[in-house]
């Protein structure tokens, strides 16, 4: 077994998918492209951001387009000291769940910071949008979140 050869090779699996987004996520992505954050209204008037076509708790159809934010509150976060190659940022950052003002659910995005001491649950943040001519209707139209300096 000493002369055993174990083969290895590099593989790439790639699919160039383009997906249709539907009217509800379409409205959300259109909003991001236009520099706004919108959600939809679910059962009992809850505002769901990012919007879903059906209320995730009751299964009822959601309705309407509701603008929220742009500021929000961090409800939870996780620190990433060493970003991986495919992470949205290549400098240390926090994954943050942000509840936009006027929303009842949280939205996942990134918040770059010098260290985890700069991030806390309850901190006030706002989205930093990509330049208008670079926005295409994608979650990356928000480049990242930044602290506004306040706390809730």
């Amino acid at each position, binding site marked *: 077994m000493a002369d055993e050869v*174990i083969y*290895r090779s590099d593989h790439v699996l*790639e699919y160039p998918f383009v997906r249709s987004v539907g009217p509800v996520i379409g409205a959300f992505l*259109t909003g991001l492209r236009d520099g706004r954050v919108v959600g939809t209204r679910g059962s009992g008037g809850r505002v769901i951001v990012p919007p879903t076509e059906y209320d995730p708790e009751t299964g009822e159809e959601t309705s309407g387009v509701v603008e929220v934010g742009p500021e929000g509150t961090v409800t939870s976060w996780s620190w990433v000291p060493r970003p991986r190659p495919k992470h949205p940022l290549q400098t240390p950052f926090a994954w943050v769940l942000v509840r936009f003002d006027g929303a009842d659910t949280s939205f996942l995005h990134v918040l770059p910071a010098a260290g985890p001491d700069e991030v806390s649950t309850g901190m006030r943040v706002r989205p930093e949008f990509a330049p208008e001519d670079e926005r295409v209707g994608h979650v990356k139209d928000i480049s990242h979140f930044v602290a506004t300096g306040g706390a809730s």
Partner: protein
Amino acid sequence: MSEREPVTMMDAATRLDYEFTAGVAMSKNLHGYEQGKFIGQRCPKCKKVYVPSRGSCPTDGLPTDEIVELPNTGTVTTYCVVNVPFAGQSIEIPYICGQILLDGANLSFMGLLQEIPIDEVRMGLRVEAVWVPPEELGPTLASVKYFRPNGEPDADYETYKEYL
């Protein structure tokens, strides 16, 4: 509000870069291709010969340690005529993909069939492997250029019906 059209589509390209490690059993099989040989493994209990082998018998769950060299000949158990072009296609259509059951093997694998008119391909056709020139052999099934009829009478259905 934007004057542009609403967003209806989204690029959702997905890409996975990874390193594949063949492992002991598959590496023996790949090393065989490098030498122009089909290398399989036999289950100690059911005696089935797997080529390529994953290193264990899927029926008995036992390591398939016994190495078996298989001959260059086999039977087409079933086949498919490919008429539809697709991205990344490297062979001119129409062509035939056959499931090849090597003599002495209990597992078939896919192989390209050539040197036969498409309308003459059939189940039970006896074939032999045509290898690339020795200097082009490598640890890949691409070392087998294709399979072609070897002139023997068709195999009896009973000999391969378990492998369809």
